[in-house]
């Protein structure tokens, strides 16, 4: 892992279009400012990790138990049924 030392208001750049600024240091916390293009997803790692773990849990599903799941209200179609679009 690359480790850099920065002072308040100093920044680092990742590539051409991502900039991370050290905004504040207080107690055991630092505040970071992130500038990046809209197509780049920025997430606190624990949010990403929670979803990754839940995906992992879902992968061990036993097919025999799917029949015992509670019923929904209507049938799903992947062919044409549209929901809401944006």
């Amino acid at each position, binding site marked *: 892992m690359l480790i850099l030392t920065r002072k308040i208001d100093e920044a680092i750049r990742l590539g051409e279009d991502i900039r991370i600024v050290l905004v504040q240091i207080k107690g055991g916390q630092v505040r970071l400012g992130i500038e990046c293009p*809209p197509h780049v997803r920025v997430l606190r790692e624990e949010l*990403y990790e929670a979803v990754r773990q*839940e*995906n992992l849990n879902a992968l061990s599903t*036993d097919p025999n138990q799917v029949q015992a799941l509670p019923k929904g*209200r209507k049938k799903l179609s992947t*062919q044409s049924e549209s929901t*809401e679009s*944006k």
Partner: protein
Amino acid sequence: MKIQTSRFGMLDVSDETLLIFPSGLVGFPAFRRFVVLDAAEASDYQWFQSVDDPSFAVVIVDVHLLQENFFVDVPDEGLAELDMIQNDPILIMAVVTIPSGRPDQATANLRAPLVVNLRTRKGKQMILHESIPLRYPLLQAPAEHKPEHEVVTEPASV
């Protein structure tokens, strides 16, 4: 094309039924091509099966079977990845987790739904706001007493 699956054996699927997830699922970026298989006749649940890995499959359910008003405010990065234009038909599905031996305690991941653009057949697992349940119980209080609470979603960009 013929695909090998660990749960359902060899399957023959037509290319136009494939769904492409350019980023894969969260934590699993390597698998990008999927097919949706009916779990059983007239079942509300389906399997989301990887074409690239025989053992990679999860159970999914249309989120609108769980919450009629569920909507996703697709973040910019998702719009681009799905080649989304105005009025494209989209499908929103939640991944189902069943605790071992306890299907009555199964939950759906509403926080990170699979959003598919049916026109381009491209999809993405979007991570929404942390106020949306990661484990939404499939068994709710009786539907007639349940208030249909609105789920407001927004991109989780901290």
